[in-house]
């Protein structure tokens, strides 16, 4: 084949492949635009003010995932009518939690060449108090019950050709002093009673105690996950139990709800939701049969809430914390709930 023939062939291929590429881009852009139009049968949503303040009436603040102009904004409903009309705030977060009048919002910052991420500490009126750059993709966020401490976890990784090794970084912030621990990996680790040091240590899913000093979290090292109890003053974490991910401490601080990797489950859906009694280390399987990949939230001392994939990305469910009953859908098209009173 002559050079000219080859060039013509290349041009023809470029035209065809370019057409396919443009078509796929237009299709994806169309689909993205469609999510900005309200869907028939979705919950009613209007704009309004949201308060994270303690002491107001009982309400749920969450990420609204319903399609329409307020998609992915923080929204609120009264706790008594979770399926009722939603009030949207205009604030967008990839991860969110609130307690004691403080909110934490992990959001994307659109840059010219790529997105960056930042953690924004919100006051009770959802106004920014401070923000911190993040080294990776947001995955978990929590506020301590008093509203003083905040923790967040990001995924970091995938930096070489077709490499897919990930690590997590978990930071803890004291909002009153502004003191930031950028990574829990700075803490001394006591594993099975001995000092432990490893390059492959990862922490995620912090949940705070009421005393604003202690916390629980997941630590992973050498392919095994542990529940660790952390002490912010002593800057130590101590292993408590094995095979615990995304722990969440009950309001009375006697139990942890968490996701446990169960033997024999499929690789796509490896987890089952469990409750661990901290005094006896007794595990109780909850009545949710599906694999949950979420850090659950306690509504009160008897009920936990978690998200599962739904038609609009995610729906919220509740299940009793003692292993009885069955899961009930609390809300459709909602994520990251904070139950405020």
């Amino acid at each position: 084949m002559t050079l000219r023939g080859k060039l013509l062939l290349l041009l023809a291929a470029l035209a065809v492949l370019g057409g396919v590429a443009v078509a796929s881009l237009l299709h994806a852009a169309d689909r993205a635009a469609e999510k900005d139009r309200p869907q028939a049968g979705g919950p009613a949503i209007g704009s309004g003010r949201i308060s994270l303040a303690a002491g107001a009436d009982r309400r749920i603040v969450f990420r609204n995932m319903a399609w329409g102009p307020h998609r992915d904004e923080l929204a609120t409903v009264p706790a008594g009518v979770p399926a009722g009309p939603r009030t949207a705030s205009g604030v967008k977060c990839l991860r969110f939690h609130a307690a004691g009048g403080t909110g934490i919002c992990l959001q994307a910052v659109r840059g010219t060449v790529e997105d960056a991420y930042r953690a924004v500490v919100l006051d009770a009126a959802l106004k920014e108090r401070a923000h911190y750059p993040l080294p990776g993709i947001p995955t978990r966020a929590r506020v301590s019950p008093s509203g003083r401490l905040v923790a967040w976890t990001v995924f970091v990784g995938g930096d070489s050709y077709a490499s897919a090794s990930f690590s997590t970084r978990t930071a803890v912030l004291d909002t009153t002093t502004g003191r930031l621990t950028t990574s829990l990996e700075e803490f001394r680790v006591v594993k099975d009673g001995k000092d432990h040091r490893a390059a492959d240590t990862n922490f995620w899913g912090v949940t705070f105690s009421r005393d604003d000093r202690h916390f629980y979290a997941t630590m992973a090292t050498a392919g095994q996950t542990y529940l660790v109890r952390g002490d912010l003053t002593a800057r130590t974490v101590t292993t408590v139990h094995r095979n615990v991910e995304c722990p969440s401490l009950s309001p009375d601080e006697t139990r942890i709800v968490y996701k446990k990797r169960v033997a024999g489950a499929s690789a796509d859906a490896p987890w089952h939701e469990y409750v661990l009694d901290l005094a006896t280390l007794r595990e109780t399987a909850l009545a949710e049969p599906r694999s949950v990949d979420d850090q659950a939230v306690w509504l009160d001392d008897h009920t936990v809430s978690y998200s599962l994939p739904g038609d609009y990305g995610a729906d919220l469910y509740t299940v009793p914390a003692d292993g009885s009953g069955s899961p009930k859908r609390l809300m459709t098209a909602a994520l990251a709930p904070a139950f405020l009173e």
Partner: protein
Amino acid sequence: MYVADSRSTPATAATAAARDRGPGRRAAVAPTVLALGTVSLVTDVSSEMVTAVLPLYLVAGLGLSPLGFGLLDGVYNGFSALVRLVGGHLADRGGGHKTVAALGYGLSALCKPLLLVASSLPLIGAVLAADRTGKGLRTAPRDALISLASPEESRGRAFGVHRAMDTAGALIGPLVAFLILRQAVDGYDAVFTVSFCVAAVGVLILLLFVPSRPRPPATPAPDGAPRASLKAALALLRLPDVRRLALCALLLGLATVSDSFVYLLLQRRLGVADRWFALLPIGTAAAFLLLAVPLGRLADRVGRWRVFLGGHVALLLVYGLLLSGWQSPALPWLVLALHGGFYAATDGVLMAAAAGFVPPELRSSGLALIQTGQALARFCCSIAFGAAWTAWGDRWAVGAATAVLAVCATAAFALRPSATPPHAGTTTDKVSEETPA
């Protein structure tokens, strides 16, 4: 496109290639090398598009927890080394360098649309493994083609040009991916589709513009010329120069800590802020891109072996700076520049050096052998480094790596291969005018 760059109007690629390798055009880079560079650039745009959005896709698109995904890397390393050897062997055995390279590029291209349907971690892991199998298959035959298309005296430069183009693709890829996600929120499917289209263009450029070597004749090879077989490939290690070079690459690989550890240490020891962490690999790549050609030319002038060893001295400086723990705004820049310089002085330069010692009949196998030894040694180093970190903490781990590298570099210096490659004369492959089917 290189076609637009050639300052002549060649009737065919073949005559151009033949003329380019004539004695009068010593400084020019052969069209075949530019074509292969273009293929690598385009392919890297395609693969880095996927790499850049993969974490986001797993976490935000699929809502998966990708932790533990890294296990794939570890398990896969040994397999990928094997694939490299197989690719090198097949290319020499009669498959032809171009055919095996095309298979490798093609396999990786076909993996892109599979990402559209793979929605669980194990499946995505399998697709990525297949993608890397393609990469493993093509690396040695591609480098063999580069070496066979360029004259001995400018081989370092040819590899430098190729590596610079390859790295340019790696830098462009993420930009393209993010532009797509700007136009279409959550448009991961568009990213994968565009990535496939780009990869297909790469395969096509390879098929159209890279001349294949003529098939080995069916008649027995003349006496003295090695026949391609596994035995012959291993027998390469009996050649003192090949053995020394492989041993040096292996030794130095044993002291080469993986990039992710370097970036982690930059942050922990030199206090690089979180917001810059994701940009650190770009720093290394940019330095690699800028230095690949100059260092390739330097290698042609002062000797590849010296530059290769010099690259490891740059790595030694990287370790030293990390060990020092000095905190100054300029230091991370210096570390990244040295780290990129290390790659620019070693990656293509090692292949240019190796090509001088390996006979053309076994070129792919020989290059694969040396690459594999180096890759496995680096893998062992990373495991050992992680273990040292666990046992003694990061500072002592870097200290140990520094000591090991100093010892290995000294040993490598003592072992250095002879200065004049025996195959300096066998520089050209006959360019066939086969039109690919």
